[in-house]
């Protein structure tokens, strides 16, 4: 594949190395002269000097034939602009954007720039995963597939404690895929009885979270299901 990586910082440079090792054709575009010279020593003709926000710089890097553009600069506006232009002007099949400030993620979504990856978000989710509290943790969003994988900790007063998985009224478009108990994970069967302290993983259509929270939240909600 011919891939253009914009930004030769730690992420871009390392990404380029990995992609080259996988035998893709790669051009990295870097706008800082000193950074460019440093990276050029290793990547040679695979790095190009210029501001990738400029359309002629992208054209000089052959964006018309690129199959993928990955924008990993430190600037969210630049990443958005480059990906938008790549997708809509140059019809690049796949774009990936880095989100530096998680608060800008809605803007990436608004402009249709997906997937967009926020390292901060990923780490925050891992933190939550390591120290779960009541509530629902997003582990993974599969944007193309329109699916999420979420995790919930069953508290002491959780309505589904002591119930069979098979008896739960899981909302349509959701599935319990794993239970973590005492440090061990297993795929639950219909006869699995849920216990307080279990961390359950579910895959679901986005928009079903509230229904799921009802079921797995404290008892007293109507969530334990009619079943």
């Amino acid at each position, binding site marked *: 594949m011919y891939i253009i990586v914009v930004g030769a910082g730690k992420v871009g440079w390392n990404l380029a190395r990995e992609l080259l090792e996988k035998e893709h054709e790669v051009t990295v575009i870097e706008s800082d002269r000193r950074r460019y010279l440093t990276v050029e020593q290793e990547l040679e003709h695979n790095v190009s000097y210029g501001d990738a926000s400029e359309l002629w710089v992208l054209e000089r890097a052959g964006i018309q034939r690129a199959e993928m553009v990955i924008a990993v600069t430190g600037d*969210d506006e630049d990443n958005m*602009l480059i990906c938008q232009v790549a997708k809509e002007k140059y019809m690049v099949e796949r774009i990936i954007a880095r989100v530096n400030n998680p608060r800008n993620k809605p803007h990436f979504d608004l*402009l249709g720039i997906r997937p967009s990856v926020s390292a901060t978000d990923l780490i925050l989710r891992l933190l939550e995963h390591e120290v779960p509290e009541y509530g629902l943790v997003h582990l993974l969003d599969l944007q193309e597939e329109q699916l999420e994988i979420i995790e919930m900790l069953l508290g002491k007063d959780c309505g589904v404690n002591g119930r069979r998985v098979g008896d739960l009224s899981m909302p349509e478009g959701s599935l319990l895929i794993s239970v973590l108990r005492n440090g061990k994970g297993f795929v639950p069967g219909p006869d699995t009885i849920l216990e307080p302290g279990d961390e359950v993983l579910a895959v679901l259509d986005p928009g079903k979270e509230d229904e799921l929270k009802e079921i797995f939240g404290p008892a007293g909600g109507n969530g334990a299901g009619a079943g």
Partner: protein
Amino acid sequence: MFILIVGCGRVGSSLARAMLKEGHEVSCLDEDPESHARLEVGLDKAWEDLGGRFTVGAGLETDALVAAGIEEADAFIASTDGDNTNIIIAQIAQKRYEVPTVIARILDPLRAEWYNRQGMKTVCPTRVAIDMLEGAVREGAGRGAA
């Protein structure tokens, strides 16, 4: 009209003052609190006393946009010193807040042209400068040859 101007530099502040004078409601948003001073150049009263609004914040921050009044805006001008910022916030104003009139100042003629074709109202000072300079040079050359 309620006009929201993001970027209170020379262009933004001059536009703000002119629009306020014409009787519109004007709100300015800028990251730099010092830029407020530009709004009061040549005025004998404080900007706020004349009915103007000023908010400190970045155009990409939705809290700041809302505080500056984007939900009520009839017109939105993206006039920061960053082309990409202007292009992005103009689209936020159009697509998320559905502001009826959105204009972006874009210095790069190529980006300005493309986004214009995509339906964004753009003003490109560079294009104007290029055209005027070409005209002036041709005029000079013409006189020289005569």
